[in-house]
């Protein structure tokens, strides 16, 4: 046996320990490679959403790379910690420091290169599949499988550098101060976990406070609260595992009625040590899973944003003519012909928007003129859009603020008009969007019909709305008039216009693409979290064997053993996931403040699928673990 053979066998015969780490490394390589295939695909490099797609995937590559770096670093350093005794034996037999470094380095490179080969190999096999799904999601025709050398080289070199750097790093991590410490590592009986009541309390306070802040966040407070809440949650979670949880089990242990009942004693006492031992791992799994849940959940909830198109743009096609130039007439005729060509049934109507001069206002800055719409016209817009209209009719000088999007808010502004110094106090917004913000670019008012008759405008613009029952079919109408479904308001342009179908389609393909990217990244994170759990479990297997051997000698039936193991494993698997769920739920409650529609359905679907995946993983591992355990317990 030569030295390289020795290193090789050390890794290959330890495959059980390295399996999860190896597979999730390979999976990271696979996803990285798939993204690279997209980025370097020759058919994908045109069009606007496609440029966005490339940018998005490049960003995803960077995230993947940084995450892989951290993941590999953490995994390798935990592996090294569990091998102290082995290193002790080797050093006893005269392994020099350099040889030890070389061994660790070669082992890491071996696993790393293996992961790269397997990852890219899988990428070549499944590449076509990913390209198909991806193309469908981005909304382009099916992509042929294109073997890109650049993607291959990028992936290979990126990961070789990654593993190389980490291998160099970790050799510095093996600190051998005294051989005697290495040698006795793991043999010392575990000391009673210590907890500080203060830190336990701090953890509870931090978590409750950040949950409260997240749950009560509104649109305005969200941005300010976001970072402190994230920081508080992270610190709180860390102390939750290292302090609070141990503190709680300690309290449980004091309750003899509970603690001394049946197998509870074994479960709770080893749980205490396990929690403390695994605190850091639990913490990592929780945070990584939370990030995965939030990423996928946020993207999934953007589905709602698309439903919101209908809310933000009441008319499928809105056209606002700024003046009466003939070009506007032509445009409207063009739109109508296009609608007819498509055999779309539609209704349309025109309403006048009066711009009236303002003398002063209580607002910080007074607009020169303000657009107003009559209440009847507002009603007409709403009923044509198919909304049930129930708002109370305005009378006299009553006004409503004109809603121009989901996020408009009442400000309680009083406007004094130049004409007769009429004072209009706005302290309520219309329930629905009257005119899209993008079209008028200003505050506005809905006023009573009689007042609308009375006011003399500085100028009047004509708004035309076209309504159809199928939003999607309007996609592409008036392509020469709008850019990506939208012609923004401008002083000089004769008109502004929006086409909901095109906007919807653009948003949808953007959204689908982001979801595609987020799902893959979420999957990588989730699998990495699973790999942490797996490694932890197998690192402790020898200890557990001895532990259960002792217990079975005292007399423990097979069923009881199954029960204890299942309970402990499920704690290991589901405690971090449930905490991550809780974190995510509060994060989504904060996210909800961004949307006017409920995102509950999307979130439930996302969290449920993660839970199902975790259950499958749990049963798989439990089966293998029990089989392994029972091999030694006869």
């Amino acid at each position: 046996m030569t030295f390289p053979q020795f290193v090789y066998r050390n890794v290959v015969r330890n495959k059980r320990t390295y399996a999860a780490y190896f597979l999730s490394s390979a999976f990271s390589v696979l996803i990285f490679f798939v993204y690279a295939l997209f980025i370097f695909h020759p058919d994908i490099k045109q069009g606007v959403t496609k440029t966005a797609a490339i940018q998005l995937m490049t960003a995803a590559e960077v995230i993947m790379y940084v995450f892989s770096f951290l993941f590999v670093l953490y995994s390798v350093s935990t592996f090294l910690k569990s091998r102290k005794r082995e290193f002790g034996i080797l050093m006893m037999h005269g392994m020099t420091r350099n040889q030890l470094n070389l061994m660790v380095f070669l082992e890491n490179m071996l696993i790393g290169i293996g992961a790269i080969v397997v990852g890219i190999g899988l990428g070549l096999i499944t590449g076509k599949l990913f390209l198909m799904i991806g193309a469908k999601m981005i909304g382009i025709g099916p992509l042929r499988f294109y073997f890109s050398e650049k993607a291959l080289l990028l992936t290979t070199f990126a990961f070789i550098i990654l593993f190389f750097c980490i291998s160099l790093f970790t050799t510095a991590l093996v600190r051998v101060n005294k051989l005697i410490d290495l040698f006795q590592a793991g043999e010392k009986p575990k000391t009673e976990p210590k907890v500080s009541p203060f830190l336990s309390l701090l953890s509870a306070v931090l978590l409750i406070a950040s949950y409260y802040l997240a749950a009560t966040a509104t649109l305005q407070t969200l941005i300010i609260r976001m970072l402190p809440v994230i920081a508080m949650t992270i610190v709180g979670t860390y102390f939750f595992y290292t302090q609070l949880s141990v503190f709680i089990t300690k309290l449980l242990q004091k309750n003899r009625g509970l603690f001394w009942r049946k197998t509870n004693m074994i479960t709770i006492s080893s749980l205490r040590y396990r929690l403390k031992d695994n605190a850091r791992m639990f913490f990592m799994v929780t945070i990584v899973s939370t990030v995965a849940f939030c990423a996928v959940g946020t993207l999934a909830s953007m589905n709602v944003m698309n439903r919101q198109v209908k809310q933000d743009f009441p008319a499928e096609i809105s056209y606002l003519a700024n003046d009466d130039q003939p070009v506007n007439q032509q445009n409207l005729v063009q739109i109508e012909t296009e609608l007819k060509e498509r055999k779309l049934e539609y209704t349309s109507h025109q309403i006048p928007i009066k711009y009236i001069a303002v003398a002063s206002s209580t607002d910080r800055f007074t607009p020169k003129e303000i657009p107003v719409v009559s209440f009847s016209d507002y009603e007409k817009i709403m009923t044509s859009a198919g909304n049930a209209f129930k708002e109370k009719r305005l009378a006299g000088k009553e006004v409503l603020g004109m809603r121009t999007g989901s996020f408009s808010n009442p400000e309680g502004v009083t406007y004094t008009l130049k004409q007769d110094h009429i004072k209009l106090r706005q302290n309520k917004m219309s329930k629905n969007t009257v005119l899209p913000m993008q079209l008028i670019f200003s505050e506005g008012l809905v006023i009573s019909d009689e007042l609308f008759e009375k006011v003399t405008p500085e100028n009047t613009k004509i708004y035309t709305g076209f309504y159809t029952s199928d939003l999607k079919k309007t996609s592409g109408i008036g392509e020469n008039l709008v850019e990506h479904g939208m012609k923004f308001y401008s002083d000089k342009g004769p008109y502004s216009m929006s086409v909901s179908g095109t906007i919807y389609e653009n948003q949808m393909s953007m959204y689908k693409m982001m979801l595609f990217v987020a799902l893959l990244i979420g999957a990588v994170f989730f699998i990495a979290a699973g790999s942490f759990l797996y490694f932890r479990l197998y690192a402790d297997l020898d200890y557990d064997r001895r532990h259960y051997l002792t217990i079975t000698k005292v007399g423990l039936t097979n069923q009881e053993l199954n029960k204890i193991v299942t309970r402990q494993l499920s704690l290991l698997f589901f405690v971090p996931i449930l905490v991550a769920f809780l974190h995510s739920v509060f994060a989504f409650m904060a996210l909800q403040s961004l949307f006017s529609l409920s995102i509950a359905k999307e979130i439930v679907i996302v969290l449920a699928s993660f839970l199902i995946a975790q259950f499958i993983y749990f049963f798989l591992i439990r089966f293998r673990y029990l089989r392994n355990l029972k091999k030694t317990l006869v």
Partner: protein
Amino acid sequence: MSILEVRHLEKIYEGKVAHKALDNINFSIEKGEFVGIMGPSGSGKTTLLNLIATIDRPTAGEIFINGKNPHVLNRKETALFRRHELGFVFQHFNLLDTLTVEENIVLPLTLDGESVKEMDKKLQYVTKKLGIDSILKKRTYEISGGQMQRTAIARSIIHSPSLILADEPTGNLDSKASKDVMETFTAINKEEKATALMVTHDPFAASYCHRVIFIKDGKLYNEIYRGENRQAFFQKIMDMLALLGGESRDLSAVRL
């Protein structure tokens, strides 16, 4: 010529209350000798062995192995010193379970970069001698405790070290396996002229030595020589242990 020479050895464990684990220990071991060290729990046996094994550093005094003092060497030289001059046998065997029996045995040679042919030759010779040549391809979890310890012994002698150090080699074995292991030790000691130092609790194991050194409270207490009759030597050891008044479990291993 003495293989091991221990002069004025002292070890103090620093702490809230400093504890003198070893106090002015002097003794030497000649080439080809097989020496046991006994004493009650906490008397400093293992500390002494760790100092000789270069795992731990003495507070004062000197140790010479084959004329060299390993504690003045730098890190790399210490590693090479262990590799060439010392062989180890432990209570818990300390075999690497990723390797097969034969791979475990040749490990010291592997670290030294010896040629595979040479390794094979030495392996054949050693394993025949120890009677484990039939289990070479097995993994460590497939063999018995006695076989594991003999594998460990093979590993400790394959590179012909100057001194073999054994820490409770029979501590984890039943009486039959203990007997096998001790007879193996005696055989290699006799036939290979290997020098060995063994720390043990077990008077039966100690009765295979040429000489047993007793220590108590970190000081040399006495030493007795074996003479011709192992049976009588065993009785002498038992008497000495009773005299030492160690904790009763030191006397529990009566296996006659």
